[in-house]
């Protein structure tokens, strides 16, 4: 249901196309540590939704458990939220998505929530191409339980409690590419200029859009040698391209030199514009993304930006061939075959 009410307008506050101020996209006051990367991502989400003129109640926000998973309380208070159990948000999102194909699903998770306990569900949500944006607020540690290593912690990292992580770090972006994800991006909580258009593009993608966002934990994992620290990321950040997201029906104003830029048109007519492209990289070619990522890894770079998008992506509803009308609005008459048919069925068992 689209249900835009005329709203009282403070003349001085800027408004988006549907008349909402940015404040309409905010949530409760954060209880995270001052400086936590997660709060910047929340701000990025608020900004993206504001700019896209999303009606907050047409979006559902879901999360697991962790500091990161708390953030949905801190944005979009007019959206329904679901704070699931640890690591199991993807299945909840899958069910929610199937029930109503018309909402936007925004999942927020942590590296513990997704790469440890949630690994199975994460992999299979990708495989099903569930229509959702999936943001991992990746800090390389378990913030909420006080700083243990997560599965994305660097090999050799020391935790605050002194233990050393002997295991290799799982790269969620590489993993998603291997699994056939149809939209894969990485960003940094400290880089709003890149993050906001990425979130906007992800929200327009028909299918599973992974955003692995490095989000330093100032309390437990912000030592400069940590690849998830502000210092390290700032020093090693490398982008595939800068990104602009032009929503459906907006005029494309900037144009770039050919060869150095590309634009990808999405199903709904919106356009992702990429410029200053990394060499030998084509945003719609999975193999080139894999290769580009391998290169960056060798160099110790943190490769960010949009890495891969499949413009032909078919989301879960297409794959499952569900009707256009949301399943949760179907009524008795749509669902119930009636007594007469039942009698036929009975007969088949006689």
């Amino acid at each position: 249901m689209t249900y835009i009410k005329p709203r009282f307008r403070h003349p001085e506050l800027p408004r988006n196309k549907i008349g909402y101020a940015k404040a309409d996209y905010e949530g409760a006051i954060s209880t995270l540590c001052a400086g936590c990367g997660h709060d910047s991502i929340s701000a990025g989400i608020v900004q993206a939704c504001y700019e896209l003129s999303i009606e907050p109640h047409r979006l559902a926000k879901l999360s697991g458990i962790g500091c990161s998973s708390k953030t949905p309380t801190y944005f979009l208070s007019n959206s329904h939220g679901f704070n699931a159990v640890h690591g199991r948000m993807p299945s909840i999102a899958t069910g929610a998505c199937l029930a109503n194909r018309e909402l936007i699903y925004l999942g927020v998770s942590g590296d513990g929530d997704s790469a440890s306990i949630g690994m199975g569900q994460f992999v299979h949500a990708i495989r099903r191409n569930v229509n959702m944006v999936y943001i991992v607020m990746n800090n390389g540690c378990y913030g909420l339980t006080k700083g243990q290593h997560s599965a994305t912690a660097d090999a050799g990292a020391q935790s605050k409690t002194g233990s050393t992580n002997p295991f290799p770090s799982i790269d969620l972006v590489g993993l998603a590419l291997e699994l056939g994800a149809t939209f894969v991006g990485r960003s940094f909580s400290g880089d709003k200029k890149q993050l906001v258009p990425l979130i906007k593009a992800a929200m327009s993608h028909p299918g599973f859009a992974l955003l692995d966002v490095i989000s330093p934990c100032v309390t437990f994992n912000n030592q400069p040698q940590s690849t998830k620290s502000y210092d390290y990321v700032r020093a090693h950040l490398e982008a595939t391209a800068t990104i602009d997201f032009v929503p459906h029906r907006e005029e494309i104003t900037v144009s770039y030199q050919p060869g150095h830029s590309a634009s990808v048109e999405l199903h709904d007519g919106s356009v992702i514009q990429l410029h200053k492209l990394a060499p030998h990289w084509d945003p719609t070619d999975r193999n080139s993304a894999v290769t580009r990522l391998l290169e960056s890894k060798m160099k110790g770079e943190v490769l960010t930006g949009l890495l891969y998008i499949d413009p032909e992506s078919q989301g879960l509803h297409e794959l499952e061939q569900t009707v256009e009308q949301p399943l949760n609005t179907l009524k008795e008459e749509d669902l119930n075959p009636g007594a007469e048919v039942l009698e036929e069925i009975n007969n088949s068992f006689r």
Partner: protein
Amino acid sequence: MEQLNAVNDFVVRFANVNGTGSASANNMFAKAIFRMGIPVTPKNIFPSNIQGLPTWYEVRISEKGYLGRREGVDLMVCINPQSMAEDVASVKPGGYFLYDSTKKLHPQFIREDIHYIGLPMTDMVMHHYSEPRQRQLFKNVVYVGALSALLDIEFGVLESIIRDQFKKKEKLIAPNIKALELGLHYIQEHYEYPLGIRLERRDKVNDSILIDGNTACALGAIYGGATVAAWYPITPSTSVVSAFGKYVSRLRIDPESGRRKFAIVQAEDELAAMGVVIGATWNGARAFTATSGPGVSLMSEFLGLAYFAEIPAVLINVQRGGPSTGMPTRTQQPDILSSAYASHGDTKHILLFPSTPAECFEMTATALDLADRLQTPVIVMSDLDLGMNEHLSPPLKWDDGRRYDRGKVLSAEELEKLEKFGRYLDVDGDGICFRTIPGTHPTKGSFFTRGTSKDEYARYTENGEAYVRNMDRLARKWETAKLKVPPPELYQNENRHRYGMIFFGTTTYAALEAMDLLREKGIELDAMRLASFPFSETVRQFIEQHEKVFVIEQNRDAQMRSLLINELEIAPRQLISVLNYDGKPIPADTIEQQIARTFNSETTKDDVHKAQVPAS
């Protein structure tokens, strides 16, 4: 030699090898008897394996309509040399043994007290069919043909079944009928027929149907309006969702677009299956999952979330032999406690106990209503016997006037009128609060669903008082549930005897027969069949009105008895367990014997109150 004689009252057992296509021939046999108007119950006893191991199909024919299992075989149809020793031994003295006489029977299989009927099946199919697969399949049909002579099955009925079955593959009708005739004629030429045990047409099945419980559950989910099914394959629940898939593909395709009014998710595991259900119902769809013991264990965390966050969820638990992987292809009722109290913390779940396929249908639809009404998980407690075997059942019924009870869900209009929405405010005092579906209203009704403690406005809180208020309201809701769940069935207008018996689910068949057996011995009891948990006042009264009550169930630890004691504050000595947990459906004589023994030990002494004498 003695010879068993009986009309419409005997047990035939088929000993096959799995993966050889015997199932459909065996089904034809049972269906023919059913179509002759004679009550029949077939049971598959199959291994946890795909091909090459012994499997049995046991058919009880009972004019009196006793639909439980009965020990002892009157006629053994032996197709599997692997299990022959065991199979020969299981025939009752005076009984019959039909075997493949292509090879001479080894003397070790010869008993003096049973009758042998040799049918050279292998020879016959080798001679009449050329393809190996055909030979294998028609061998099964040949023995059904032979049985038609031996037991007086109306040949026309068998023909009609074949015609129905191959409606879309007409070419196969003639060769099948020919195979039947081969068997028939062989017997007619070589043996006296019919045997002492035989069939006679009756009119005892009325409008009943012969259907398995899992298919009935699936249809219940369809009629109950479930649009999302999420599951992970596991025996014996798998066929619930496959049947759902089969029927929705016929009944729920949008004729214009060809698109689906349903979604089936084969999840990556049971945790995810339950997550999908919870996500879908939270978002306003009706959804269900089906699983068995190990799946219930894996779902416990999510079941606790659904209880505490108050999200509807329907789970069909087709129980099998536990613990752990246990006996995956055997039946039990061993998940009562683990389902009722699934998850850590103070949690409790609604359970429904169907005992016939008709109830599987009805209760699955009801479960969807109850889950919405009570905003909590509802678990339909079926079992392998009910779910995977065909049962004679009243027909499935649906009243076209029936509306779904979606419970307390606020519409945009209602929200518009509301001053302030509180998701966990107990407005009506019944412990059930109003919920909203995402997307309903732009500024009103949004809230945060969580598994943590919260206040009436769904805000996270660590405040002890708010927590207690919420927990006490959940306890109030539990009281409300007692009034909403299906009532128990009483088998008498008023209680007249000192002793009573309680049973539920598939135990019912045998319990009712046992009542008759006991009556024949002069032992009379009142009886009650449980249909749901939490238990209503009627259950308490029934127990209170009897000196002792036998609780009949199919598990070792007397779990239903525990639940009754726990939840109704019953004195344990009042409840006497009758148990059977060997994985086979409980037979009537097990019940009869255990109860009679208690009776005869000069008025029940204290030491019998937990008489856990296992059957067989």
